């Protein structure tokens, strides 16, 4: 068991974003975190990646507690994340952006550059290494986000709506990249809205609704679960019980 989320709850100013969330992630697994808007997915991400501390409950990586230790500790433990709205370092080139991430593990500038070059190659951005980060196309920017995160040599990667808003071709390429990341031995948690893209990709799914875990299991089962359908589409579409 790589990651354990143990009865995590978090409220913001009286509004409960996450209530009693529990699930785990295995080594090398691709987990999908799905649920309608407002279900608490981003807040959960923030808790796992350390940007936010849960009010109750614990998050453990390889048995050691990482909740409440802050984003830097999480990176050092082996968790990396991407952001929904791409946050690239605009004053730097693509390579420099990735080097920042590489320094999380690398001892010196040379090692960091090596790591960065390798990751750029892996994510298909090698040709754009010296381009200023602001000049990238949206799909290239997403790759950059992943590249930076990968440069920190994580065991677990959190992808926040990586595939949203891409053309079908771009989305296919993106999905392939995610699979490639898994072959490097990195486990992945993905948050997505676009179901057709997500479901073929993931091994397991955890469904959130209104801050709680609705159900978890194989994607095919989860998607047929009446409760899930109701949560997404409302009562009108629930299959006749």
């Amino acid at each position, binding site marked *: 068991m790589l990651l354990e989320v143990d009865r995590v709850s978090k409220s913001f100013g009286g509004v409960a974003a996450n209530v009693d969330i529990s699930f785990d992630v295995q080594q090398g697994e691709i987990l999908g975190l799905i649920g309608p808007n407002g279900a608490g997915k981003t807040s959960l991400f923030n808790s796992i*990646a350390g*940007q936010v501390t849960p009010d109750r409950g614990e998050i453990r990586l390889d048995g050691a507690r990482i909740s409440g230790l*802050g*984003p*830097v500790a999480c*990176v*050092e433990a082996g968790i*990396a*994340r991407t*952001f929904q709205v791409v*946050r*690239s*370092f*605009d*004053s*730097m*080139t693509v*390579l*420099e952006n990735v*080097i*920042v*991430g590489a*320094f*999380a593990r690398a001892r*010196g*500038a*040379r090692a*960091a*550059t*090596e790591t960065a*070059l390798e990751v750029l190659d892996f994510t298909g951005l090698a040709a754009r*290494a*010296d381009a200023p980060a602001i000049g990238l196309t949206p799909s290239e920017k997403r790759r950059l986000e992943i590249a*930076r*995160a990968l*440069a*920190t040599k994580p065991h677990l990667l959190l992808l926040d709506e990586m595939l949203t808003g891409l053309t079908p071709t771009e989305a296919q390429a993106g999905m392939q990249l995610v699979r490639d990341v898994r072959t490097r031995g990195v486990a992945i948690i993905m948050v997505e809205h676009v179901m057709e893209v997500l479901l073929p990709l993931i091994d397991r799914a955890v469904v959130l609704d209104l801050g709680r875990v609705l159900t978890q299991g194989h994607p095919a089962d989860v998607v047929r679960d009446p409760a899930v359908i109701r949560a997404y589409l409302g009562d009108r579409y629930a299959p006749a019980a």
Partner: protein
Amino acid sequence: MTAASHTTIARRRRRELIAGAIVLAVLALLPLAVHDTYSRNLIIITLLFAGFAQAWNVLGGYCGQISLGHALYVGVGAYVSTMLLVRGGVPPTLGMFAGGAVAGLLALLVGWPCFRLSGHYYAIATVVVGEIGYQLFLNWDWISAAEGINIPYVRAIGDSWLWLQFRIDKLPFHILALTFLTATFLTAWWVEGSRWGFSWRAVKDDPIAARSLGVRVFRSKMAAAAISGGLTGIGGAIYAQYVGYIDPESVMNGQLSILIALPAVLGGVGTLWGPLVGAAVLIPLSELSRSYLGGSGRGTDLMIYGALIVGVALLRPQGLASLLGIRVRAPRDVAGDVAESPRAA
């Protein structure tokens, strides 16, 4: 040769080093072309201040924390080295490192609470800290307070590199100042490509993203403070030896703080060559205008000074170095809001 050394970054950095070596050679040979004492003195002062500016640049330009009270470290370096010499008989060649160490530690002490403040609040806090230091030193009798300390020329020792005293020929100071400048230049060059350099740039662009990639923001700022303060302190000791007399007015006051920070800003903040270009323009200008115009107390020198600052700031905000075709990164608002707390990283 690994892939890393073939990158455009690596090539550019090698070019910078080579250019630096050339400039160094030219500067070293300058005294051969210039013989009168006044000009030689001017060159030495310019070199020293270029070094100060470069040291300031590490904290102010690269790390983005605009310190307007940096003279504090000059003064501390000068006083520590001088006190060690005058009271303890320690040669300045050792004393300057002690001065640098104390200054560096002080910088850490100041940074610890101050890095929590954002942009303008931080700048004002540095001015305040500088003022506090100035006032305290002004009233501190153990170090002769406002009277200052004269650094005696010990005849028994004569001209000496160990004791950094040279009676007639000021040339060694030229070499010393140049060495100081080279040291700060190399430090800036090294820091630019190091983990800290990348950390600072990342934080300036997007602190949240930086943290999410494992950048220890607070720690990186402290590193900047220590490096910057330490180097400035060493320079302060050298300055003291050169001038032969120190008092709080000359090594620690607000004017000096501005004179250290200004060249870096004028020349291009956060760049390798900016402080040098800025100092090369500003220091001679300020010295010359003070000698020729300021003597009458008529303030024309200030007017020129002020107009120049405004002009460059409005017309060439990325700094004068860009006029020489030196690539200047477009930094985000350097005085922007990056407030830190020690616990966070």
